[in-house]
């Protein structure tokens, strides 16, 4: 289990982290969300010893993370980068060996992962000869090649085409199923909702929300109500039940209501106005949870 405890870090006058704490369990995919400058990259850099926190600590299975522990982690930084003139295969093998794999094993793992990433025929090419998308795949390979226990990926989906996104999703799910801890940051919330079980939302250096997505949605004080009453528009609503209109298209309205809204009363009012074609009561989407958490 990855534990982030009370991390604080300042860069001059800028507060990057202000007592951030959360945990990430192995076998689960954790989405690490937050606006730009909220402290995501700094947190990841602290895990890898690339930034030293002013206060707080990072633990793996209860032990402080040190240089040797980190060898079992895989990292994909936000600023992508590999050796442009080094051959793809030698490059992955090089990184695998830096993670402690013997040369022979590293070469075998390299071939295996290049095949998995669809780059088996590019092993002897220099990295710079590959397309941007393929270079991204090699970058992912560099984080995976040594079979890490924990994967930390900063914006892994940015710049990927739909096929790349599908491949990335598949690999992350497969790794998590194999018991690996997966933490990744992203601004594509629909994708996070699709891929992740847990989310951690960070804002201004503090953790604003944290837990399984389903629980967070259920715990929200707000609900969505989608109603469609033929020929009535939104006229039936008439300021009822603390509902606010989020969206209206013809007879379709989407409302934001409190979790304890009087559903029977609302339904009765709608039925009185005309035939009800749709009446759906749902927890909010992740993007709304995010806005809520970040703005509070």
């Amino acid at each position, binding site marked *: 289990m990855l534990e982030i405890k009370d991390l604080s870090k300042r860069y001059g006058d800028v507060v990057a982290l202000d007592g951030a704490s959360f945990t990430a369990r192995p076998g689960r995919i954790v989405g690490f969300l937050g606006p730009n400058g909220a402290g995501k990259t700094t947190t990841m*850099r602290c895990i*890898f*010893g*690339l*930034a*030293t926190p002013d206060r707080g600590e990072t633990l793996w299975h209860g032990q402080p993370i040190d*240089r*040797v522990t*980190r*060898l079992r*982690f895989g*990292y994909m*930084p936000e*600023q*992508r*980068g*590999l*050796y*442009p*003139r*080094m051959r793809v295969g*030698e490059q992955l093998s*090089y*990184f695998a*060996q*830096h*993670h*402690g794999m013997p040369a022979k094993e590293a070469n075998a793992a390299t071939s295996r992962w290049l095949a998995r990433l669809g780059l088996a025929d590019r092993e002897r090419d220099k990295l710079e000869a590959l397309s941007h998308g393929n270079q991204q795949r090699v970058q992912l390979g*560099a984080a995976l090649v040594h079979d890490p226990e924990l994967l930390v990926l900063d914006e892994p989906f940015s710049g990927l085409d739909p096929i790349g996104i599908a491949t990335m999703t598949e690999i992350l799910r497969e790794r998590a199923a194999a018991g690996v801890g997966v933490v990744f940051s992203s601004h594509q919330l629909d994708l996070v909702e699709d891929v992740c079980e847990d989310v951690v939302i960070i804002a201004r250096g503090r953790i604003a929300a944290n837990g399984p997505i389903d629980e967070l949605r259920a715990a929200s004080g707000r609900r969505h109500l989608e109603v469609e009453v033929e020929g009535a528009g939104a006229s039936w609503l008439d300021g009822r039940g603390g509902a606010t209109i989020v969206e209206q298209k013809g007879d379709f309205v989407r409302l934001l209501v409190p979790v304890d809204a009087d559903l029977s009363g609302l339904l009765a009012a709608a039925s009185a106005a005309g035939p009800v074609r749709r009446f759906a009561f749902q927890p909010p989407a992740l993007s709304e949870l995010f806005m809520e958490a970040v703005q509070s």
Partner: protein
Amino acid sequence: MSRARAIYLVARREILERGRSRAFLISLVLTVVFLVAGIFLPKLLGGEDQAHKLGVVGTPPAGFEQALTATAGQAQLKVNVESVPDVATGEARLNEGTLDGMLVVPAEPGGSAEFVVKKRDNSAFAQVVGSAWSAASASQVLTDAGIDPATVAAASRPPTLRELEPSDANRDTAFLFANVGVIILFIAIFTFGTWVLTGVVEEKQSRVVEVVLSTVQARDLLVGKVLGIGLLGLVQLVIIIVFGLTIGTVSGRFSLPPTTGAAVAMLLLWFGIGYTFYSTALGVLGALASRMEEASNASSPVSILASLSYVFALLVAIQNPDGVAARIATFLPPVSPMIVPLRAALGAIEPWEVALAVVINLATIWLLLEFGGRVYSGAVLQTGGRMKLRDAWRAARR
């Protein structure tokens, strides 16, 4: 995984990636070309003391060649004598340049000899031939007149030469070695030091450094890089030295003095020390730059220091290798890598001075790694413009 293995992996990557790069092969070829030019150019330009070729028409007096060798030796000339059938042939060969002078022996003893040159531009050669002829023909006349040949020979012997400061036969070679040695050393230190500089900036610019540093400590990355590139430099230096000494010897340009082994060992040792000092300093300063365009700016303090040291070695120390300035410079780390092998090649350094200089330099390198390693780790992850030394130092504060 141990830190030593991480350093080994970094060094190995540098050797494999750069050893087969075109830049390495080109720099090797270029250095060899410079070396060959340095050894042969003085000879080709004609500033060298080659043997003078003297053609002789007719039969000179018995003691002529002996007298010629003696006088030529005093004038530090070398003269080869061959006989020429007649004056016309000799003149033709003078014109085509295969003879430098022709001596026409008179048919009758006591007759007037003639010395023919194409142009009168080498008075020392003419004097040597002239005095040898006078001595030999006078001896001939005296001997013919019945005077004991031994007495004649003794009387016509030139005075023996006595030097108050005996010249060393190896001194010219030592001077050449010192000169070429410093040039090679400077080129090698600077070439491979620059490789470390650009390597550091490239890693930073391509952002790969963040991936590498997630497993390797910053100082180990710098040490591995310095080590790997340094080994390549050492290999290149050995190739160049072996090549240079071989062609120099085979072509007869110089003969190896007995001190050659020590001089070469000295050169390699001080390449190791000088390269480590300069490349570490360049690597640390390179980490302050974000892009290649800023690298030369960031590294200019060290580049200037290296160039000044080089100029000092070639202009001051080589003229006066045991003067006060050279002695002081021996113990100043930026300069000593060029001064010590130079003074050693000229035989103007005491063993204790070498030992002390080595100790001072190693201590300085250790300090540089301590100080520079911290600056490097503070700077190498920062992007966006050139960083100040002090900010990098603070950024790394634990």
